[in-house]
């Protein structure tokens, strides 16, 4: 078996990203003064080119594998990769000002972001248990380092360590599951596993393996009961890193989870459906109730992300084409909402010092009405108030659940979003009706302003032209069920 040129063409975005990341690393090492800023700008450029490549690489038949079946490209991977790359590029862009103001801007940060992105792309394209694991490790290792990035800050190093230890445990579970699956099926390739499972009855041990596999992946999407790391890590990590964690890696992990469950374990849908239903319901409930008492906005966002993971998992629990397309759409809207919210959190500085208490937002409507308005819109959208985008995200997954007969799951979803609306709207109340705290620093910088405005426009006007995104999600989901 020799390496053909077509193998390399399919992996072009990944190859480019890996090569460029290494080049930027060298550039950062050898360039003395302004390496952090130059590398960051170049990294954004690299991400843009990768985005174009990822969008452009389309196999003629709609689906193709390379590197001996380890690497897969189809329209689902394309959709997920575009989402991940957009998320990474924007979160990287808005990180600059914050890092510079905190005086922790170093060139390694953009390089690590690029490597983490590489890991995410590898996860999305994985077509083999080994490729899955290596993609996941590439991403996770970069994330552990990024969490501890602010190394002179005790909370940041603590969060890095916690994430590392628990992440290693999750990797262990995943590997244990993968080895059980390999032991029973005798293959690690997704297609071979799917064929083997379709042709004869799955043995009991395989279900144990699958459960471990799902547990490992659930850790990565921070679904309850594998969510314990999220609040601490989100709170301790530097805010731009938290913003990055909340969006890109989550999308990639969801894409991987969807691929694994619908691809190789598609024939075992009854076995994993119960697991995912449980994960979804638990995540929605915990995400809604645990967030109520929070006073730190990053911690609040952590619980919020757990809740959102639950809503997205409803789409997977349905397990059909409609559910998955709802999940993809949910992820896209989640991207925009979180990007906007974290943009505001990044702008929360009082007298040059970063603050992250919800009380610091008090009276924001009077000190900076524009920011208050934007955050209010993002919060309304997160709570799922029509006609904002967040409402449609929930609508699609719940509709899919009802259509497939998962009435109880949809009911839990609706109820927990009603609970969640309480803490989202509490922020709005703090901003509009409380006595003003100290005013936040202005101006917030052009990059942040543009990103905020972009997310705002997307969220407000999504209902006018939903078809490109909805159509894309539906098409991407359809290739999973050919």
């Amino acid at each position, binding site marked *: *078996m*020799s*390496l053909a040129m077509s193998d390399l063409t399919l*992996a072009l975005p990944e190859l480019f990203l*890996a090569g460029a990341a*290494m080049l930027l*690393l060298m550039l950062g090492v050898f360039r003395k003064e302004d390496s952090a800023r130059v590398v960051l700008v170049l990294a954004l450029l690299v991400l843009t080119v990768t985005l174009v490549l990822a969008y452009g690489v389309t196999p003629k038949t709609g689906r193709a594998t390379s*590197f*001996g079946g*380890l*690497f897969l490209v189809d329209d689902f991977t394309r959709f997920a990769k575009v989402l991940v790359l957009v998320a990474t590029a924007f979160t990287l862009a808005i990180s600059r000002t914050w890092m510079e103001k905190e005086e922790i801007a*170093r060139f*390694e940060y953009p*390089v*690590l972001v690029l*490597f983490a992105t*590489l*890991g995410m792309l*590898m996860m999305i394209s994985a077509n083999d248990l*080994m*490729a899955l694991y*290596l*993609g996941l*490790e*590439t991403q996770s*290792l*970069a994330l*552990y*380092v990024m969490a*501890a*990035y602010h*190394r002179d800050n005790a909370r940041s*190093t603590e969060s*890095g360590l916690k994430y590392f230890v628990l992440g290693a445990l999750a990797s262990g579970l995943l590997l*244990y599951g993968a080895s*059980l699956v390999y*032991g*029973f*099926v*005798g*293959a690690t390739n997704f297609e071979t596993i799917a064929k*083997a499972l379709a042709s*004869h009855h799955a*043995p*009991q*041990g395989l279900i*144990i*393996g699958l459960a471990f596999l799902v547990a490992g992946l659930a850790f990565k999407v921070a679904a309850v009961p594998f969510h314990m790391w999220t609040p601490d890590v989100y709170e301790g990590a530097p805010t731009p890193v938290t913003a990055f964690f909340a969006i890109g890696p989550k999308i990639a992990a969801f894409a991987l989870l969807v691929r694994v469950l619908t691809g190789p374990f598609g024939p075992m849908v009854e076995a994993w459906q119960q697991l995912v239903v449980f994960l979804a319901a638990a995540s929605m409930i915990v995400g809604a109730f645990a967030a109520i008492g929070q006073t730190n906005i990053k911690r609040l966002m952590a619980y919020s992300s757990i809740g959102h993971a639950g809503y997205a998992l409803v789409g997977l629990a349905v397990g059909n084409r409609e559910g998955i397309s709802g999940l993809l759409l949910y992820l896209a809207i989640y991207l925009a909402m979180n990007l906007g919210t974290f943009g505001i959190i990044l702008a929360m500085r009082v007298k040059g010092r970063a603050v992250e208490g919800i009380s610091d937002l008090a009276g924001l409507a009077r000190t900076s009405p524009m920011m208050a308005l934007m955050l209010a819109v993002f919060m309304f959208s997160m709570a799922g108030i029509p006609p904002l985008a967040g409402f449609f995200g929930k609508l699609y997954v719940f509709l899919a659940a009802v259509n497939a007969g998962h009435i109880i799951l949809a009911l839990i979803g609706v109820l927990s979003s009603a609970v969640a609306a309480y803490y989202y709207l509490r922020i709005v109340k703090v901003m509009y009706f409380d006595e003003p705290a100290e005013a936040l620093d202005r101006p917030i910088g052009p990059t942040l302003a543009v990103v905020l405005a972009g997310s705002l426009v997307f969220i407000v006007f999504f209902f006018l032209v939903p078809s490109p995104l909805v159509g894309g999600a539906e098409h991407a989901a359809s290739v999973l069920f050919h």
Partner: protein
Amino acid sequence: MIIQGLVFYLFAALAIAGGVLVISAKNPVHSVLWLIVVFFNAAGLFLLQGAEFLAMVLVVVYVGAVAVLFLFVVMMLDINFVQLRQGFLHYLPSGALVGIVLLVELAVVLVGWAVSGEAPKSLAAPAPELAKMTNTEALGHILYTQYLYLFQASGVVLLIAMIGSILLTLRHRPGTRHQNISRQVDRHPKDTLEIRKVPSGGGI
């Protein structure tokens, strides 16, 4: 054949005994030394299977490099082990429970595996014929063709680990003096030395 069996049980028993001693030894340096014993016996088991390359690499990498660094670190640590032990008993029940659950599952799986009879059929044959080439060649063959992607990806993972450890620990201390050998070599007497004729009794 009998000798081989005996040697297998010898290695296996020593490996397990070593493993138990790793976690039960009072002195952490002894733990690391027992760990080395475990590595050696694992290498011996590899040799028995005819995987001489893996055996040697295990010794080179784990015993020759990893365990040395472990030992290095452990020897420098100043930990109160009595205090550390107290936690051990405290966590023993929950730890044992998790261990037993995993063991039972593994047992269930193994029993199921032996009974099902399906798995051995679908097990793919080992890629290269072992009779045709040494296992060093066979490993190289499969790593650089079929698993090239994984091999390269592992390289990326290691690179990230390296960047991470440097990022989190390297500190440039201002004011330290570094040796610059090329500058030292480039220096000529005429740059630094000045020879003057000192008039006797005059001084400079």
